[in-house]
């Protein structure tokens, strides 16, 4: 009996860990719920219920024993799509019966502590190249390409830096857009850059909450209203932070 009970808890832990990694890496809510219930089902739990919000997961399984429920809190969310994909494929392998509970737990633990796919330097470089490309997409001139690249890279780097410094997303985004606006104004005043608007729009793009917006829409469609609305609120807050940072600079021009 004891053995059986313990196994139930193990299955729960595997499901919850999978859900936690996915939610922390930026997966949609319905995918998290789906994956967790699928894993439980494939390990022979007939009924399981999950309730996922961006800040916490509740999960319960029904067996002959009294129903067991666990709650975990999600405090920090980043974006790491590779982890979402890896957990997804683990869930597939479990469905094919390739992994037992212990193996799955071990692999998931390894995924959880894995480094991000790309080192920070490469991500900053990608942000700066994207900024330059966005400038060209929005009808900018080649003369502004280099300033937009540099400013976009600095902006992305400062979001990461301030986020490590103070765990307040609003503040780090505000500071980053303030820096972007300041640098763009300086570059135009010194004659390095030409069109202030285009440079700012291009270099602000890496900060735009694109993943949140997409996820919010997809969650709302799937009927996860709480998650959808709170992700929408988070996206709005980010947009507001970026806007007010830029507004401070624009007001003084």
């Amino acid at each position, binding site marked *: 009996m004891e053995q059986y009970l313990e196994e139930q808890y193990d299955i729960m832990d595997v499901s919850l860990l999978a859900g936690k990694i996915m939610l922390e890496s*930026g*997966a*949609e809510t319905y*995918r998290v719920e789906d994956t967790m219930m699928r894993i439980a089902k494939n390990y022979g739990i007939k009924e399981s219920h999950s309730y996922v919000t961006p800040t916490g997961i509740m999960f319960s399984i029904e067996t002959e024993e009294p129903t067991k429920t666990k709650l975990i809190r999600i405090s920090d969310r980043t*974006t*790491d*799509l*590779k*982890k*979402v*994909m890896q957990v*997804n*494929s683990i869930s*597939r392998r479990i469905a094919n019966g390739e992994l037992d509970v212990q193996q799955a737990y071990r692999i998931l633990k390894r995924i959880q502590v894995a480094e*991000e*796919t*790309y080192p920070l330097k*490469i*991500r900053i470089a*990608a*942000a700066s*190249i*994207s900024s*330059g*490309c*966005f400038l*060209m*997409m*929005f009808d900018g001139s080649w003369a502004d390409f280099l300033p937009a690249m540099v400013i976009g890279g600095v902006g*992305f780097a400062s979001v990461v830096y301030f986020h490590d410094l103070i765990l307040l997303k609003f503040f780090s985004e505000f500071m980053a857009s303030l820096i972007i606006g300041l640098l763009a104004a300086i570059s135009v005043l010194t004659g390095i850059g030409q069109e202030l*608007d285009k440079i*700012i*729009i291009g270099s*602000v*793009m*890496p900060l*735009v909450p*694109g*993943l949140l*917006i*997409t*996820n919010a*829409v*997809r969650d*709302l*469609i799937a009927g996860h209203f709480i998650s959808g609305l709170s992700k929408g609120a988070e996206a709005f807050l980010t*947009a507001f932070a970026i*806007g007010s940072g*830029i*507004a401070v600079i*624009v*007001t003084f021009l």
Partner: protein
Amino acid sequence: MDILIQIITSFIAAAGFGIIFNAPKESLWKCGFVGMIGWMTYFLLFTFGIGEIPATVTAAFLIAVISQFYARVYKAPIIIYIVSGIIPLVPGGTAYNAMRAFATNDYNTAVQFAAKAFLISGSIAMGIVLSEVINQLLKQSRLKRIG
């Protein structure tokens, strides 16, 4: 020439977003491709005088359809492909103009831009919803055929 620049820059920008979001290495080409198709659809429709909103709906729809296709073929979550494609459509410029007008106390212009930014975001959502509907319909018809 102009179109060539747009194709190249949109590809690089979308793939760059794949890197920012830590997408797996082998998916970066697909991210770039999805982003390029989406942006070129929007750009060409807009250049030929079709309004911003229908252009955005069409582009978002196409992005979602291609992403769904990729997700099924490569057995990966759709979010990997859809995000980098959607980003260029996000009304950053319009939102910026609105905010700039607000900051300079020009509320009339500001509200106009803000309404436009809101509508464009809505049409991105609309495009995704449409593709989701078609996806569900396809699934159902396949189930009927089997059953």
